[in-house]
């Protein structure tokens, strides 16, 4: 839709003015009543109410309700949850509009000359139709801490496993006193070995379900000149067996990492066990070596980032919010981009400007009005954010996550029922949007 040009109002014939006013009242009446009763009157009521205490209009307290927001002046969710909510709102204001506008700009510019941009835009824009409340439920599921349930942590765990190899075992103990150590330091076979030596490293207390997949019957390897061989295995067979001896039914522990230390205790070689638990350190001469199981074998698995914990809850909710609104920014900025004259961009390119220079020096300055509209729209929306906070944050961290609008509701309707304080919080919120209100009015007056 083209923004309609501001046309001059039709000049009414003079004798009609009275009749026209009656008509105007008829057309405007319902709207004025609704706006008056549901917005203007409440706004005045709330401002007045904010100077009275919890019990009602008989209890004038001056600016005590406003003071309560800042007393005690400590940024601590439990000591002063109200000031904490102001802090959270400040984080929202500083981060969300800027990031959303930036995402929108990047997406709009990148999709500009892509054939399948419609599909991309539809996908990114779709969350706009979903309620912020349902969005909260969606992201609550995404953020579950256990990587086997929460998709975000599962993704991080998968990426992490490319760089950090997790342990193959979680727990184990030596089967005999020949082997000493612990899972955190690793295990060492105490008996020194030389070329041709064979190292039996029996471990027990490994739950059946933790035996690495692919494990086969353990085999005690033969001695080999110029090498130290050995086997690391689950030294336990049902009904007992002899500890320290490789017996039928006992499985090797594939993937277990082994180290070879020289007589001074320095690591000289590392290897890992085969499916039957065997391993070989070749090129060994002399004696006095010791063989051990590396502690990295027992590296704990990725436990998951606590997205919904008190530390990360606000960034987590902001991420979900960005997911919703980036599409809005993209579409509005995309429309602004389409309105930029092709010739200007082509001229810059012809003059030898790189794509980055065109973007930085031509596109962004020309888009500045659109970018500011998106930014201001997001600023207003961010101040009012409510649904998504209470649906993403579990009850235990709701105070940590609360923003001003959430505290307004909690103080007024969430059990405390202090309408004086609630009104003061609402007025505080209103004062924050007044500059935007004035900006809109000024923009309108300039247009007419």
């Amino acid at each position, binding site marked *: *839709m083209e*923004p*309609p040009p*501001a*046309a001059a*109002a*039709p000049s*009414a014939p003079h004798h009609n003015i009275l009749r*026209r006013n009656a008509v*105007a009242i008829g*057309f405007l009446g*319902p709207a004025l009543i609704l*706006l008056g009763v*549901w*917005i203007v*009157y*409440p706004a005045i009521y*709330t401002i007045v*109410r904010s100077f009275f205490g919890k019990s009602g209009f008989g209890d004038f307290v001056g600016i005590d309700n406003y003071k309560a927001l800042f007393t005690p002046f400590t940024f601590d969710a439990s000591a002063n949850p109200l000031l904490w909510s102001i802090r959270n709102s400040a984080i929202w204001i500083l981060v969300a509009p800027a990031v959303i506008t930036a995402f929108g700009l990047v997406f709009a510019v*990148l999709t*500009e000359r892509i054939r399948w941009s*419609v599909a991309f*835009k*539809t996908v*990114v*824009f*779709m*969350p706009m*139709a*979903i309620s*912020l*409340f*349902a969005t909260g*439920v969606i992201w609550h*599921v995404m953020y579950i801490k256990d990587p*086997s*349930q*929460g*998709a975000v942590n*599962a993704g991080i765990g998968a990426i992490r496993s490319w760089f950090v190899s997790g342990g193959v075992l979680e727990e184990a103990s030596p089967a005999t006193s020949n082997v000493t150590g612990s899972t955190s330091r690793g295990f060492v076979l105490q008996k020194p070995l030389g070329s041709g030596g064979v190292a039996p490293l029996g471990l027990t207390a490994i739950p059946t379900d933790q035996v690495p997949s692919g494990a086969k019957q353990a085999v005690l390897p033969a001695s080999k000149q110029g090498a130290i061989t050995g086997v690391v295995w689950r030294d336990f067979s049902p009904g007992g067996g002899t500890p320290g001896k490789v017996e039928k039914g006992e499985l090797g522990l594939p993937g277990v990492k082994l180290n070879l230390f020289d007589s001074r205790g320095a690591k000289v070689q590392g290897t890992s066990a085969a499916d039957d638990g065997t391993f070989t350190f070749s090129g060994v001469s002399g004696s006095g070596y010791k063989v051990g199981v590396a502690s990295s074998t027992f590296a704990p698995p990725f436990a998951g980032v606590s997205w919904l914990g008190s530390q990360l809850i606000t960034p987590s909710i902001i991420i979900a919010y960005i*997911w919703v609104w980036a599409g809005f920014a993209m*579409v*509005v900025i*995309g429309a602004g*981009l*389409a309105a930029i004259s*092709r010739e200007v961009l082509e001229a810059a390119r012809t003059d030898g400007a790189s794509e980055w220079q065109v973007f930085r020096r031509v596109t962004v300055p020309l888009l500045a009005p659109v970018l500011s509209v998106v930014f201001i*729209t997001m600023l207003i929306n961010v101040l*009012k954010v409510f*649904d998504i906070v209470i649906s993403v944050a579990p*009850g235990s961290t709701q105070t940590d996550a609360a923003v001003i609008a959430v505290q*307004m*509701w909690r103080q007024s309707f969430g059990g405390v029922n202090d309408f004086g304080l*609630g009104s003061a919080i*609402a*007025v505080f919120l209103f004062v924050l949007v007044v500059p*935007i*209100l004035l900006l*809109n*009015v000024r923009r309108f007056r300039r247009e007419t």
Partner: protein
Amino acid sequence: MTAYEAEAPVVIKDPSEALPARIARGAARLPVHIFLIAVGVLWLVPTIGLFFTSLLSPEDFTLNGWWKVIAHPHIATWANYSNVWNSTDIPHALWLTAQIAIGGTVLPILVGALAGYAFAWIEFPGRDWLFIVVIALLVVPLQMALIPIFTLYNHLSLYDTVFGLILFHTAFGLPFAIFLLRNFFIGIPKDILESARIDGASEIRIFVRLILPLGLPAIASLAIFQFLWTWNDLLVALTMARNTQPITVAIFSNLRQFGSNIDIIAPASFMSLIIPLAVFFAFQRYFVQGLLAGSVK
């Protein structure tokens, strides 16, 4: 045809450009394609995740991540949906939501169109001044009205009624409705209106016969916005009603024991977003237009 095509710039192909150059340029854009595909997938995953979660029995949910459904489709079940559908509260909540959303869409459009017409085409003293008030009301936070309207509704017996919720949504939808429609109506050619007036048509007749049909595109945009806004509301219903629970409130009351009743929350949430998504996909074009026309809200 979709909404976004209007904005897609025309790429002027240079016919003289040689094929190798085109291939080279395409290859240079490959990272952009890969990046956008990755972003697209990231943007889809959360919604798909909710859908798959809604297909898991509570036992399977605690044992498996929802993505296991892809590899093991047999663990998916519609049981959660039939349970939720056969329960009394969720279908009732959806029905109430539909009532609130339809009422909260039709009423502000009607009232807003009347006022928008007056602001655009009827001259009366103080018109610009009054319109500035409307623009100022655009950004007044809902929170400013919660306490007084709650008190008022208790006096007027509007508390906990569908009508009370509709009126609240109407009032807070009005500034945007008036702003959008006034700006659209003012673009209607003056001649049409003047000749109708000279022919002796009454203002009401002009409004019904001319303005409403001509304003249909703007009204459609507004309708979608208002529908999504009222359908998705939580705050107003949570404050102004106790037993008149639309779907968001109904899920919210289940949410307090999150995890233990994911088999209700997930399917109910998904059901709650089916209708807005359908509306969105059906009327994307108007949605985008409304967004562009009125992104000051």
